Structures are given as C-alpha cells and as structure tokens.
C-alpha cells in the first residue's frame, strides 16, 4: 500500500493559492518537502493530517481518503507541528502519558518507558518540562507521537530553532524510526539537512512542485560543480562556453555552474575582468540543494510588488 498519495491537491485562502495541484507519491521513506517560508509546506501537511480540507483534489494516507475517511487516517498517523507544544508544568512522563491515554494504549506504563528511552529521555522523564532544552522538548514530542506506533509520521519543521547538535540528534532519531519501518513526511527550509537525511525530496515554490527526486539526482541535474564569485560592478555579456549563470545567492555572490570547475575558474576570472567587474574572491565546490533550488526557482519575489495582505494571510495560515 502506498503510504501517501496526493492527486491534484489544491488549497486556496481567498484568492491566494497556497497549494497548487500537488500530485505526489510517497513510499516507505523519509520524504522531505522543501521550500521557503510561505511556499505551502505547512498547508500541505495540514491537509494530509485531516486538519484542513482541500479546495480541490484529493489525497490518500495508507489507502484512506483524507476527506471522507479522516478518522481512519488519524488512526494511522502522528503529527508534530512546528510550534513545540509540550506542557511545561507537566513532567516529561506526564506529557507522554496524556497521549498514551488519548490513544487508548494498553500496557501504558511499558509503552511510555519504551518511547521515552527511545528518545533518550529516561533520565529526565520525571523532571518538569520547564527545565528541558529545546532539543529535549522536540524529542519529547516525538516520544508522544510514537506511543501508538504510527505508520506515517508528519513532522513540520522539526529542527526549527534548535542548535546544531540538537538538530543532528533529531535527524539521527528520524533515521532510526525510518529503519524501523515508519514512513516519515518532513517539511523543512533547511536544504542542507534534507540533503543529508531525506531519501527523496520535493521542492515547492509558490504552492507548486518544481522537482521531485533524491537529493543526489537533483544535484546531478544541474551540474558537477558550482563556482561562486564575489564581485562588484555589473556583468552584462554572454558567459563563456561551458558555464551557466545560476543566479545570485543571499550573500550576493554570483553563482555559476560548470561540468569541470577547476578548469573554468581562470576562464571565468578573465571574462569577469574583461566585463569590467572587480573580482574579490572566487571558489568552486560541489553543488548543494540550495543551488538546485536557486536554479529551479527562477522567478523571484523582486519581480512583483510586496503584497502585504497576501503576506499576512500566508503567515497566519502557515
């Protein structure tokens, strides 16, 4: 059975199309939904977890329709939203016990001990959550989500706001869960994390999927090497053969792609100087998902005016 399957899934907020005819098939894997803030990631998760009705299209989770068989879907899944919602006045064990009761788990105490130890929280289980770090709170939420052994786990930005070590640990746990046979559907805007940990990713831009594949295949799509150059001055002419302009990244470096970066660096350097630009630094590296994203998402915000109303709608409905 296919864990998640969407067919033309669409959601409007008024005239704003948050998710646009999304058709995906997710197997037994760690599937990452990537995209910038406001690209429709959370809206997609809300529809798949039955919390929001699609405007058009349909989706099935573990074979159950999200609209007509919502109750069956909820029995198969767990959902961890990005808000970090754990009760700080309760102990870790009490937080998990609440979910064990709500799921109607038999052998409750054993189950609670098991999920707490899976998430490395046994030592601190009887402390108030007030004293937990951000990473521990997130792991506690994972423990809550695991009490009923869901088939599909939905994680919305699981590493947001955590430090590097905590992020690494969360991803280790996610991989362990996948090895135990769980399907994990995760959203993130941290491309590098998805690059390391997801089996397949979908890149979302303004509600539509622009690419779906494994991170390595997506990277091989654009090029072998990425050359980034920090320059001042304008460049207008056509680039030399064997080089393509990808665009400008957040540090306002010009990015180029090439099949053999080491040979093209001197050529690019000369060309840039001929164009009258001053080159401050130039380097080449393997491509990352960030580069893939930049290459695929060509129409950037600058082209349009800033629509305050749309922006607010998006934030509220994130």
């Amino acid at each position, binding site marked *: 059975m296919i864990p998640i399957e969407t067919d033309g899934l669409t959601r409007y907020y008024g005239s704003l199309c948050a998710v646009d005819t999304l058709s995906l098939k997710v197997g037994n894997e760690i599937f990452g939904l990537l995209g910038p803030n406001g690209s429709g990631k959370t809206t997609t998760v809300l529809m798949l977890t039955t919390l929001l009705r699609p405007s058009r299209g349909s989706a099935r989770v573990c074979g159950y329709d999200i609209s007509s068989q919502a109750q069956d879907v909820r029995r198969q899944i767990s959902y961890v939203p990005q808000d970090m919602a754990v009760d700080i006045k309760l102990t870790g064990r009490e937080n998990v016990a609440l979910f064990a*009761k709500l799921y109607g788990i038999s052998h409750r105490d054993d189950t609670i001990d098991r999920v707490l130890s899976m998430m490395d929280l046994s030592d601190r289980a009887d402390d108030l959550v007030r004293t937990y770090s951000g990473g521990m709170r997130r792991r506690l939420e994972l423990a809550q989500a695991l009490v009923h052994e869901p088939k599909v786990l939905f994680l919305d930005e699981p590493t947001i706001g955590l430090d590097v070590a905590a992020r690494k640990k969360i991803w280790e746990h996610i991989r362990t869960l996948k090895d135990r046979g769980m399907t994990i559907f995760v959203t993130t805007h941290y491309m590098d994390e998805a690059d390391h940990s997801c089996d397949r990713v979908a890149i979302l831009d303004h509600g539509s999927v622009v690419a779906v594949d494994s991170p390595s295949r997506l990277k091989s799509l654009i090029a072998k090497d990425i050359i980034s150059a920090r320059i001042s001055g304008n460049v207008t002419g056509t680039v030399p053969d064997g080089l393509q302009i990808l665009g400008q990244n957040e540090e306002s470096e010009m990015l180029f792609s090439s099949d053999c970066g080491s040979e093209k660096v001197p050529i690019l350097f000369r060309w840039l100087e001929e164009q009258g630009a001053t080159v401050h630094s130039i380097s080449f590296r393997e491509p990352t998902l960030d580069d893939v994203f930049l290459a695929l998402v060509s129409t950037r915000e600058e082209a349009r005016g800033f629509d305050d109303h749309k922006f607010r709608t998006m934030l509220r409905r994130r």
Partner: protein
Amino acid sequence: MNDLFAYFERDMIRWVRGRISVVSALVLPAAWLIFVGLALPTTFTEHYIDFITPGILVLTMLGASLQGGSLLIFDKILGFLNKFLALPSSRESILFGKILFITTRGLIQATVILVLALFLGASFLSLPGVILTYCILALFGVLLSAFSTTIALHLSDHDAYAAFNAMVSMPLFFTSSALMPYNVMPSWLSAIAYWNPVSYAIDAIRALQEGVLAWGRIGALLFLAVLVVAFSVWQFRKVTV
C-alpha cells in the same frame, strides 16, 4: 470517556501547579461577597447577605466559565489544539474535558463563597437546598463553559477573546437579578433581567431559600444547556484550522 478525563487531568494539574492562579481563584469571589454583600446600602431587605449570596455564587460561575474559554485559546495559539485534533480520539472529548474542568473549578470557588457566607451570618439553606444549589450551579457552568469554549474555538487570538469576555460578562451580570429583586428594578430592566440566563440560575437558587423548586427557571436553564452543548459538539466535530 477516558479521553475526557485525560484532558481534564491535564488542565487540573496545570492549574494546581500554577499556584498563584489557585490563590486568585479563591480570593476573588471572597472579595466580591465581602465588599458587595456587606457594603452596599440597601433598603429592601434586612438580610442582604442572604439575598446577595446566590447572586455572587452565579457571578462566580459566570466569571469562571468565561475566563475558562481562554484555556482553549491558549491551546490553540500554542499548537496543542492542532495536535489534539489530529488524534483519532473523538473531538468532542476536547470540549467535554474543558467543560468538566471549568465547571469543577467554578464549583470549588463557589464552595469558598458558601463557607464564607455562613461565617458572615447567612442562614439561608437546608442541606438538600445546598445539594440542589450545586446542581443548578453545575448546570449553569456547563452552559456557559460550552458557550465560551466554542466561541474561543472560532477566535484567533487572546486579545479577541478578552474583548469578547469584557463585552459579555459585565452586561450579563448587571442585567440579571443578582443585585436587586425584580420589584425594585426599573421596569425596562426587570423585563431584560427576566429573560437573562444568568437570572434563571439566580432565581432558581433564591427559590430554594424559600424551599421551592422553580421548575420553570430550572427547565429553561436545562433547555439552553442542551441546546448550546449540542451546537458546540457539532462545531468541534467539523472544525478545521
């Protein structure tokens, strides 16, 4: 049923562990009883404390219930509600858990008032009368907490809820029969007061002081409670975020 108690237990533990809110919940009704019950210059009765106590009891339930709606607002803002709504357990158990907690907390506050009123020299109820008073207060609590929790379900932030609370609580209280009997009210007020649900509860408890069961008032309260709870269940079942 287990779901309901799990939600109830969660709210209860959080309330008890936030000590200051417990103290506040017990001091506030006492202050009302003492300052309103003993200080208002009244001419229509010798024992104003006997007259005002049912009013303060119902006021306390009213305040507790309307304030209780903010519990759901915070669950919503902080992301708990989304987690709960994605669970396979029935969604109305979220509502029933809140009703049970808010009403229980209100009844605990009401107990403080009853005990204090006895110390202040009130001598108004028999034992069956006290039991029936609790039943009426519980019914009133169910009505108002279902109402406030369902309103909270549809409001987006705490400011909006505070505005709703302020708009509803004071008018409901001052247009009720809490502070004075119908025969000393201006006629326009007595007409409004008679149809105010807050008066249903107050009048029913006052009737118990005379040893009378006011079926009309209790029935009206029951009818409203059933109506509002049924509507609330429907809202919780179909809610999306």
